[in-house]
């Protein structure tokens, strides 16, 4: 019979680190998907998956069981991702002046040359989506990914990221506003 998450957590807390394997193998795929959407590349996503499980292991004494282990792990993954994209953004800001970043986004969107025919291919569309997501602030991207791709409600996003639900809501709004501005011309062109 498959061991439940709660039973595995209890064993880990009792000092059996091997019991953690069940939890890692069960939740790795979903944490990877979240991490990929947050970071936009597989290599960083894999690093984040490992960081998430290590952080969860160190903090497992604080897991109170009010939420499921999966939800608790998701919160840790979201926070690891947020920390990661913040530090990535800081590194980029130090390397690239702000006006150049704006130009990079514009040229990335333009390079997609979004004619209706080309947009019929999801691979081409994906070329536009990644830079559009990159243009969001770390908090906007995290909140948007949780809301849009993971289906987490805004109140839960606030709890997961340790902010008021109003702040989470505004992060989602700002994200949608920016994405709409960047993508609407291309998407409309594809429709017509």
């Amino acid at each position: 019979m498959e061991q439940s998450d709660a039973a595995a957590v209890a064993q880990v807390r009792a000092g059996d680190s091997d019991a953690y394997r069940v939890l890692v193998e069960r939740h790795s795929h979903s944490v990877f998907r979240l991490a990929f959407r947050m970071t936009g590349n597989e290599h960083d996503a894999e690093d984040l998956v490992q960081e998430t499980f290590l952080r969860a292991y160190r903090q497992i004494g604080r897991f109170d069981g009010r939420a499921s282990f999966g939800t608790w792990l998701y919160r840790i993954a979201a926070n690891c991702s947020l920390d990661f994209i913040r530090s990535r953004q800081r590194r980029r800001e130090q390397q690239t002046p702000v006006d150049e970043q704006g130009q990079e986004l514009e040229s990335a969107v333009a390079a997609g040359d979004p004619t209706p025919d080309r947009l019929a291919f999801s691979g081409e569309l994906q070329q536009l989506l990644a830079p559009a997501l990159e243009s969001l602030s770390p908090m906007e991207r995290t909140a948007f990914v949780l809301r849009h791709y993971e289906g987490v409600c805004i109140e839960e996003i606030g709890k997961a990221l340790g902010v008021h639900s109003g702040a989470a809501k505004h992060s989602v709004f700002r994200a949608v506003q920016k994405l709409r501005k960047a993508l609407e011309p291309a998407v409309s062109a594809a429709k017509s």
Partner: protein
Amino acid sequence: MKHLNEDELVLHYYGEVHDGGVEQHLQGCEACRANLESLARVLDAMDGLKAPEPAAAYGSRVWHRIAPQLAQSAERWWTGWLAPRRLVAAAAMAALLIGAFLAGRVSQRRQMAGLSGPVRERIMMVAVGDHLERSQIILVELVNNESKGTVDISEEQRRAEDLIGENRLYRQAALKSGDRAVSSVLDELERVLLEVAHSPSKLDSAEFEQVRQRIESQGILFKIRVVSSNLREREVPPPQGKANTAL
């Protein structure tokens, strides 16, 4: 007629509107319906960002990568204490505490556990110096944290919790030995460590700023540096024949 704004349309798209008025308005307003359709097209297009599906054995691969680090995590407490410098310090602490107990019962002036006063003092200086250095690193990391928005201090809290017990032992030993400068700094440090350990692990920018200001306003980092510097001077072996002050 007041049209729906974009925020209301976003909430509607994600099914987070529980106000029947929005739905009713959409039924009767072509402009808002068109706006919602336009928004939905962009958001639906975002679904095109597919995440690659890892291989079935991915979970097992993650486990093999992190398992050695879990063992290190579990052993950290022991390995920390088994490091030569810490081992000497731990032995000295045990000797000091037992010695203080025996000395109190037998004779205040009798030497403890076979260790001479200068040797005991030097070992104690190394242990306290090491403890202050590790505490200082945590506080410096907190003070220099430049994150905006919510700050996660859970890692610093975990390390602060580890240091609180040691701090208490060193403070009591310093108090017993009459070293007021060291015991006073350790007393202040203990309060700061407790505050860090007992704060919420995620702080918004205002809460984090309060913690940072409390660390800075007490001047604890400066005091730690001064005491550490004094301890390092006292760690240096005295020239032969010159007496040392017993701890």
